[in-house]
């Protein structure tokens, strides 16, 4: 695990600086670019560069041993970190006072106090300048996600924001700031996933918090400002936990070195600190009881949602949890983190079946998947960590695609209500095929997430005691709920109906930026499904082996024939669909309607004369599941588990 100073890895310090600095620079330029055509050029150009740089970093890493490195010239970032922390705190305090919301400033003040105590009081050991950054397979996975999906979202936003401003002319166009924030987000995410030094990571951590705060509040309506502050408060709370963890760890030699911290055998580390770091991870990944901030974030322009859900922000949370997994293995903290995650998975899936707003369904699905990842991180066996990383990958591509598609639909149909998407396959064929790809990626066998879920169940079987049984029960019910809400969405997308040319033209006005981005995403969904074996064997499997010194039993070990059968069957339905599409011998007006079909698609003779259009609505389990109540109960239950997680280690060790 020696720091590599020679070989291809030697490019990594420069690339790291580039990945952090270049998007930041591009963002600043965009902040001052008002001409749309210039902006288009800059965004496309910068996105391409970022994507290439991230691929270059992965190539430079070369899938070898873990690499630790510092800044070029071994510069110490300690002062810069302190300045950044003070600036962030002051910004939060200022904006909080401006909007007369005082919780956020209070939390920022507390963090500021800790930072001053650590830095000015000299309680924080100076970081090892050669171990500031840590590039390993997990970091590589996240760099690729952030560096490929993030830029694609930025490109999509070019088309989306143009239509968005047209749809909502009353919202002041501040597209300059919007694009600045997108790129700032990417910059800080690169920093975050590559940091090995905890104080350094905290700075990037807080920048992502701020970015999401500003993006959620983009429209500056009282409603979105409220949601923005909710996100800020919750994430600052997590940040505060992170700070306190730093305080607890700073007394130990090398305690702030993430790689060393997690490489220690489980139980040897300071569990309360691990618990606090896990708390930070849970807030950022919007696990219950902190889920409401991510739901509120749905009111932001859709690229924000795509970014928050796929490649940034929430992924930072589970990234930290996965990093901590070895340290949590077999501890009370691990078990409790697992149950926060799994219970969130269950409760949120239950809420999702009652939700009609497509973006919110997607959001609940994100929280559920993150819950599963958190659960896997908490159980912390090689298998479960393998599952967790696999879900990170598959979820990022598919969910980003889905958000972008919903964004496109929203700008064409002026609604996010799932119920108004019916007949989509006839109305907007390309968009529906993209949507189908995304939904299939999320839950249809044999796409990646299903493979991951199956592996999770396999892994949970091995978990001894009541915990194993509980995990299995949660998986069983949660998976069924997942099928229910995705199935409903598929029903809407797959329904056909007669359309007039005006409706057909809707699709033609979708911008090229959006087509490009969504198509690339769809190719990504299919690509990662096809490459599932490679991803598992070359990247995720070795990572789990490295982290746990034990190889995960992946699906390839269990049943290699399965993969062949499945990949073949993936092609089955599209092929059939294509064959059917070319046929013309169907008659949509010929639907069964008690003998009252009235010669047109979806029209029947009405009871009181004339005709009437048939409308169809999905079931939302009204009278069986009260979504709001489930959400509150879940929040309360998870809050209790979380409280136990923070308190128990302190008590047990005392």
């Amino acid at each position: 695990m020696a720091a590599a100073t020679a070989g291809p890895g030697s490019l990594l310090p420069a690339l790291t600086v580039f990945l952090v600095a270049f998007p930041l620079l591009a963002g600043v330029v965009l902040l001052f670019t008002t001409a749309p055509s210039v902006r288009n050029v800059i965004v496309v150009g910068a996105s391409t560069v970022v994507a290439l740089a991230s691929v270059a970093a992965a190539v430079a890493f070369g899938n070898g041993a873990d690499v630790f490195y510092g800044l070029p010239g071994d510069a110490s970032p300690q002062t810069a970190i302190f300045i950044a922390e003070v600036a962030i705190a002051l910004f939060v305090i200022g904006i909080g006072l401006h909007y007369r919301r005082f919780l956020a400033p209070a939390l920022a003040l507390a963090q500021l106090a800790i930072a001053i105590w650590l830095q000015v009081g000299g309680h924080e050991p100076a970081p090892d300048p050669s171990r500031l950054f840590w590039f390993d397979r997990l970091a590589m996975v996240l760099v690729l996600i952030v560096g490929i999906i993030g830029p694609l979202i930025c490109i999509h936003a070019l088309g989306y924001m143009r239509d968005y401003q047209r749809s909502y002319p009353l919202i002041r166009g501040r597209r300059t700031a919007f694009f600045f924030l997108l790129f700032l987000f990417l910059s800080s995410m690169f920093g975050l996933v590559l940091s090995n030094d905890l104080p350094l990571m905290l700075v990037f951590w807080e920048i992502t918090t701020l970015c999401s705060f500003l993006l959620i509040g983009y429209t500056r309506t009282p409603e979105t400002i409220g949601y923005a502050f909710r996100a800020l408060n919750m994430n600052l709370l997590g940040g505060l936990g992170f700070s306190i963890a730093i305080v607890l760890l700073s007394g130990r030699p090398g305690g702030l070195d993430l790689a060393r911290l997690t490489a220690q055998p489980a139980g040897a580390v300071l569990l309360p600190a691990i618990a606090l770091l896990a708390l930070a991870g849970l807030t950022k990944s919007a696990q219950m009881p902190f889920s409401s901030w991510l739901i509120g974030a749905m009111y932001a322009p859709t690229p924000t949602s795509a970014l928050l859900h796929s490649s940034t922000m929430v992924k930072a949370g589970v990234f930290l949890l996965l990093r901590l997994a070895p340290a949590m293995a077999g501890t009370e903290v691990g078990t409790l983190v697992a149950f926060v995650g799994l219970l969130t998975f269950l409760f949120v899936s239950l809420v999702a079946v009652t939700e009609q707003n497509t973006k919110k369904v997607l959001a609940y699905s994100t929280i559920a998947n993150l819950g599963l990842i958190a659960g896997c991180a908490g159980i912390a066996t090689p298998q479960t960590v393998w599952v967790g990383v696999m879900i990170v990958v598959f979820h990022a591509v598919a969910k980003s695609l889905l958000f972008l598609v919903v964004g496109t639909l929203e700008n064409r149909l002026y609604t996010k209500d799932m119920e108004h998407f019916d007949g989509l396959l006839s109305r907007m064929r390309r968009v529906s095929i993209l949507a189908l790809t995304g939904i299939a990626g999320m839950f249809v066998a044999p796409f990646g997430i299903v493979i991951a879920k199956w592996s999770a169940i396999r892994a949970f079987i091995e978990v001894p005691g009541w915990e194993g049984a509980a995990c299995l029960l949660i998986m069983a019910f949660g998976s069924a709920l997942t099928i229910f809400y995705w199935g409903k969405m598929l029903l809407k997308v797959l329904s056909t109906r007669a359309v007039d040319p005006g409706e057909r033209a809707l699709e033609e006005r979708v911008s090229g930026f959006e087509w490009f981005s969504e198509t690339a995403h769809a190719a990504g969904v299919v690509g990662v499904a096809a490459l599932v074996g490679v991803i598992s064997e070359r990247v995720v499997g070795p990572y789990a082996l490295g982290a746990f010194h034990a190889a995960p039993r992946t699906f390839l070990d269990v049943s290699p024939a399965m993969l062949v059968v499945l990949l073949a069957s993936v092609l089955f339905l599209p092929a059939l669909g294509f064959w059917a599409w070319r046929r013309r011998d169907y008659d949509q007006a010929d639907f069964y309607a008690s003998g009252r079909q009235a010669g047109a698609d979806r029209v029947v003779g009405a009871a009181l004369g004339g005709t009437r259009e048939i409308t169809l609505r999905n079931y939302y389990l009204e009278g069986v599941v009260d979504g709001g109540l489930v959400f509150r109960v879940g929040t309360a239950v998870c809050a209790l588990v979380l409280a136990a997680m923070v308190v128990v280690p302190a008590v047990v060790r005392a």
Partner: protein
Amino acid sequence: MKRTIVPLGPQHPVLPEPLVLDLVLEDERVVDAVPTIGYIHRGLEAMVEKVEYTEMGFVAERICGICSFMHGMGFCASIEDIMGVEVPERARWLRLVWAELSRIQSHLLWLGLGSDAFGFENLFMHCWRMREEILDIFEATTGGRIIFSVNRIGGVKRDIADSELAGIAERLRALGERFAEIARVFRADPSIHHRLAGVGVLPAGEALAAGAVGPMARASGLATDTRLLGTHGYDRLDFEPVVEAGGDCLARVLVRLREVEQSIDLIRQLVDRMPKGDGQPIETRVRGLPDGETFMRLEQPRGEVVYYLKANGTKYLERFRARTPTFANIPAMISLVRGHDLADVPNIILTIDPCISCTER
């Protein structure tokens, strides 16, 4: 908010007859129901303009193929009332035998259809199997299974021999024993209670306001039974109207179950009390033309029917009107549908035992 529209009927397998409801649903909860009928309307009341009053009874019988006997009987009784015809004693008794047999037949038929609507096919089959025995009696005594044409103005066309009547009473006694088994299923089966208990509750006050009649009203605790008038010879029989308090679909089933038992008992009473002796007169010869009007009430299986006849001294009646029980029960039924589940709709519709053919005429 978007809702599901379900065009229920006119062709729908749980509706034996065309009835149309446009249901508006959330999940499966009915939030609105727009009714209409008119798919069976023939305009048979206007046929009095073309059909002589002596023949009109055959049209009246075909108002409905389930209570056809009762319709023929009601029509003849109305003319007899207008013309002041005294019907022979034997004919009065015989009419009641057939009338109560018709009630048993109708209720068995309905119990079958009702069970089919809530998905209990087996029960449907067994109910209809029993019903065939009643049809056998009809066939033996009148020659018809559905339409008997045995009523005439002034009496009945055929007699039933005393020995045959005793045989009928005996067959019914045996039937009653087998019916008890089926009745036990209806009364005790938890899956039936799941579907019927508490569904479509019509409180007594609403039943009264809505003008509900027959088993529908009696299941809501109203002791209305036109047989209590004592007309048509019912004054010679001992019975109490069957009343249930529940007001729900289950209560409506229970009322009909008990009415089958009651009718079996009534036929036993009829056979016991009827003056014995074959060869008694069964028909009074009627002369002249009717002139005048009457309101005639009769308790059909589905409840009170009201005939209004107006004659003007010619062969052709001036007005013939049958207000059938379903016509009176439909408004209450429609008000019940709202707020229930789609799956409850067939039960609510069927537990009024709708006869759309009667309603539309």
